[in-house]
């Protein structure tokens, strides 16, 4: 196989991954392209278009039930994992620090704002990674970066705008460690499932 063909297949692999197709579907597409290029000797861009363009065509042609996650599923999955990881780390670290785990109105507001901005940033970065036009990639990428910077800034701003207020709930250190560890275990299981789903299988 020519070096240019291998490079094309690598770029196509990455482009397909950004659309979050299952590993089985990615393997199928790569096998079709590789087989065709080996048989014809054709230039891959001439035969299939640029990797990003072909990945977008492949995804557009797929019906919903064929190894393609919808945008809502992708964002929902990322959001759920993010929330569980955020609270898992927060509870576990506070518990391990020895004190009770307390949550105040400031914590609730800053957590909510942080998670919404991180979610927006992730969604914009995903759109940037799968956009075919360079100007759209730039716009979404810049939007994602702005959202993430705003998330970082929000942590400091929340304490100035919201009164500390009464404690919303309090957990003993052991409770914080147990709940934090349980949430992080769920995150590990979700990530393991995602890795298994994403494993590329060559069908040949």
């Amino acid at each position, binding site marked *: 196989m020519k070096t240019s063909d291998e490079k094309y297949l690598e770029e196509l692999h990455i482009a397909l991954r950004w659309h979050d197709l299952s590993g089985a579907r990615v393997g199928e597409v790569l096998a079709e392209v590789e*087989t065709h290029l080996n048989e014809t000797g054709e230039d891959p861009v001439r*035969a299939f278009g640029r990797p990003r363009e072909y990945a977008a065509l492949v995804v557009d042609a797929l019906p919903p039930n064929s190894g393609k996650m919808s945008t809502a599923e992708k964002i929902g999955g990322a959001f759920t994992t993010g929330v569980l990881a955020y609270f898992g780390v927060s509870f576990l670290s506070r518990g391990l620090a020895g004190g009770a785990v307390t949550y105040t109105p400031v914590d609730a507001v800053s957590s909510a704002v942080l998670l919404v901005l991180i979610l927006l940033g992730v969604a914009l970065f995903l759109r940037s990674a799968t956009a075919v036009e360079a100007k759209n990639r730039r716009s979404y990428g810049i939007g994602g970066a702005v959202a993430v910077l705003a998330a970082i800034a929000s942590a400091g701003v929340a304490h100035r705008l919201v009164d500390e207020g009464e404690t919303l709930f309090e957990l003993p250190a052991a409770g914080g460690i147990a709940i934090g560890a349980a949430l992080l275990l769920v995150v590990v299981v979700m990530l393991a499932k995602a890795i298994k789903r994403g494993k590329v299988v060559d*069908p040949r």
Partner: protein
Amino acid sequence: MSNKAVSGRRAQWLRGVLDLAVLALLAESGEDYGYTLLQRLTEAGFPEMKAGTLYPLLNRLAADGLVRSEWRAGEGGPGRKFFALTDEGRGVLSEQGPQWTEFARNAIAVLERGVRT
């Protein structure tokens, strides 16, 4: 008319008939794989056929249950993915093929009258 406009119009014609044409070719040959299907479409006069157009279509037809696909080991080489019509695909071709050819006949008649004027 610019080359881009001509090419865009031809792409529209192709989009309107390519799936039925692929079903028809598979009905003719029983089964086939991507590369030779591409050659047969080009030889039949379909303009600017590319692998990047055909393979997503074949996979969509498979996902819709109109064709089935199977990887088979090649003789001394990597495998090939063969496609064949399913009964449902045969049914769609039998029903929509005649409808399309009637539509095409009517369109040809209108255009030929206009061109002769």
